[in-house]
């Protein structure tokens, strides 16, 4: 993907159709916008000197056409991203983009809605950003359709002209809850179907709003996708485990664990590992960015991490079972013990028979028998 060249600073807020013009129309000052960009650069772990460049780049950009597809999902991801609206500047991120299709948020309905999608695809062929939440049912296309179009067909069709795809939420990224055993709909992720487009995975159930906006800002600034890990997640947000950045970590290291949710240890804020916290195997930014404008995150509220941003977290052995506990209770104990005893008895029977036969065949040695 080509990176965009920022125009001269100072002009970007007046060029019609650009983000800068949109911001100006909404009464957002350059100063406030620059502040937003500074926050974004620090969140993305870019050098502070990048903030003006980012501001220039975003302001000069034509508002990015975005098509948002929702498949087998609960609308939690959309709920989450709307929670980021007020009152901070983050909500204005929507003015950075042209959200051409989002069937929960758009005003149009029915054929008009579908028309908007087709129009955007035609107008911005090869340039639009496709955001997907929800998984795709493969067992039967009828499990989930929009305007009579199966999720699979709509995804494949929409992906063709997309510059890149952002899979939002654990359903779109890894199949999520619909894929949980026994996966009745044959749910799969976006990456399971689309192989020829760059895909950014932003898992979480739901993902952290600021992480969604941060990834979009990165894409708008550089026109490239951020550095991803092996699971397609931006490393900048998913580089460390919850456990590593958890404020309760010292208690883990000291072996201080809450045993129930209301014991003295829990009240003292000790580690929730034994109550099933999946923080050690969950790569996400909750412990640092937190939720609701940095207010709190699940562990801070007294509940262990359930690992919602990890693939197949639903089937990872139970939310309240410590990571060190067996994922499924051992049910073979008595059976294998009996089988072992049976095997041992059979071998012993054979052994004793063999030894007995050797004894029975014993020829008393005489002096002559010492020589071969």
């Amino acid at each position: 993907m080509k990176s965009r060249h920022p125009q001269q600073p100072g002009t970007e807020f007046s060029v019609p159709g650009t983000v800068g013009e949109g911001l100006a129309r909404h009464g957002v000052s350059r100063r406030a916008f620059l502040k937003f960009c500074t926050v974004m650069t620090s969140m993305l772990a870019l050098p502070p000197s990048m903030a003006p460049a980012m501001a220039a780049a975003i302001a000069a950009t034509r508002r990015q056409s975005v098509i948002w597809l929702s498949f087998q999902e609960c609308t939690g991801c959309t709920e989450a991203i709307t929670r980021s609206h007020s009152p901070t500047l983050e909500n204005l991120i929507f003015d950075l983009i042209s959200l051409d299709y989002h069937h929960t948020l758009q005003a149009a309905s029915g054929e008009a809605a579908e028309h908007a999608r087709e129009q955007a695809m035609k107008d911005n062929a090869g340039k639009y950003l496709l955001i997907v939440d929800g998984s795709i049912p493969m067992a039967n296309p009828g499990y989930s359709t929009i305007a009579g179009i199966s999720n699979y067909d709509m995804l494949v069709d929409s992906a063709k002209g997309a510059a890149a795809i952002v899979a939002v939420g654990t359903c779109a990224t890894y199949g999520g809850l619909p894929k949980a055993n026994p996966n009745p709909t044959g749910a799969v992720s976006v990456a399971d179907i689309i192989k020829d487009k760059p895909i950014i995975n932003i898992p979480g159930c739901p993902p952290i709003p600021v992480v969604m906006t941060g990834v979009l800002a990165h894409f708008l600034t550089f026109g490239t996708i951020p550095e991803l890990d092996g699971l397609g997640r931006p490393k900048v947000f998913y580089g460390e485990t919850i456990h590593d950045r958890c404020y309760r970590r010292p208690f883990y290291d000291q072996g201080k664990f809450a045993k129930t949710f209301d014991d003295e240890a829990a009240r003292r804020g000790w580690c929730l590992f034994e109550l099933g916290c999946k923080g050690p195997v969950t790569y996400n930014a909750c412990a640092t960015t937190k939720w609701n404008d940095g207010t709190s995150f699940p562990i801070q509220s007294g509940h262990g991490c359930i690992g919602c941003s990890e693939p197949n977290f639903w089937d990872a052995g139970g939310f309240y079972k410590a990571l060190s506990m067996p994922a499924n209770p051992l049910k073979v104990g008595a059976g294998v013990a009996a089988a072992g005893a049976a095997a041992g008895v059979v071998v012993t029977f054979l052994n004793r028979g063999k030894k007995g036969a050797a004894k029975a065949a014993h020829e008393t040695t005489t002096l002559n028998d010492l020589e071969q």
Partner: protein
Amino acid sequence: MSASLEKGVRVLKEMIDAPIASYFNSCVHCGICAEACLFYTETGNPKYTPIHKLEPMRRLYEQEYTFLGRLAKMVGLSKPVTDAELGEWQELVYNSCTLCGRCSAVCPVGNDIAYMVRKMREGMSASGHSPDGLKGAVTRTVNIGSPMGIKLPAVKAQMKHVEADYGMTIPLDMEGAEYLVMLSSMEIINFPEYLGAIAKIMRQAGKTWTLCSEAFEATNAGMQIGNSDLARVIVKRIVDGAEKLKVKTVISPECGHAYTALRWEGANLVGKPFSFKVQHIVEVLEEFRLAGLLKTEGMETDRLTFHDPCQLARRGGVIEPQRNLLKMVAKDFHEMPDAGFMNWCCGGGGGASAIEEGEELRLEAFKRKKSQLDAVKPKRLVTACANCRIVMEEGLEHYQMNLPIVGLTEMIAEHIPDPVDSK
């Protein structure tokens, strides 16, 4: 002429039992047994590591008595034991093992390696891979009556000498005597003092005792070569003799392996518990001492030390009595390093001294005893095993050490005052 690999393997299959299975499964190849074995410590050759001496038996155990071993043998992963291999192992199982049991005393997982070597010898002898020296000894014992070819007339001649020297009659075939005294050929030929010592001790203690014309030889080359059938023939003579004379106790002479053969293996060889007690002469002396029946006068004043025969001490459980007895007569007694339970073998026990081709190795191994002796620098060395005595005399001569060796019983007897009325 029927020894064969097949027979050897069959006998080994008879021998392998739960302890052996447990031992083989426990070995972690830590090599500590090597440090306990004088054949390794004095040569530095790792092939003398005790557990390695059992390698063919270990493989046979796995192939015959474990499911996975059978499987491995079936698919060719585990090679069958061959005749040539057993031939190669003969040196390790006989020449370089005296069944001293030091390895069994140190193995961290508790393997009784000497127990296994003893059983392995059963298979070795049945397959024809036993040393000629031991074959000769066992043949002479079975055919003539003693490993050195001594017959009753020689014993009788010895008795006459003692009777003349000490002025006492040596009872022979006396029914109802309390003690039946056994001898080893070594004592009959080389250390005739022993018989006189016994006579003096018994007279002082006022005990009845006898020799048996049908069973005077205590040593058991059948056990040394590792053949229970032949060992049984030999031990049976003693059992029959003791039963016929209705003695209460059979006294094993100053000979370590004779004690083991009679005291611990005997009943198992004949297949029934003995009707009489078996005691080593040292145990008898200790009993007399405790009962006040053993009184000595005078003390040895030269620097003395004591060599514990392995079969008496580590493998027989008699360690303190010999020290208590020495205290009665020795003023200047000093222990060698590792004395007692952890004492080092003379290098010729378990039949090894009868193996001619093992002499060089035996002398090499004797360096261990030499260094023990060098640490104490005694004027005389006391022991309670005629075989140890012979082996050590050879070793001392080889290393040109001038150190007389004396039997404990004989030394005690020298301090028993002559009864006034006998003069």
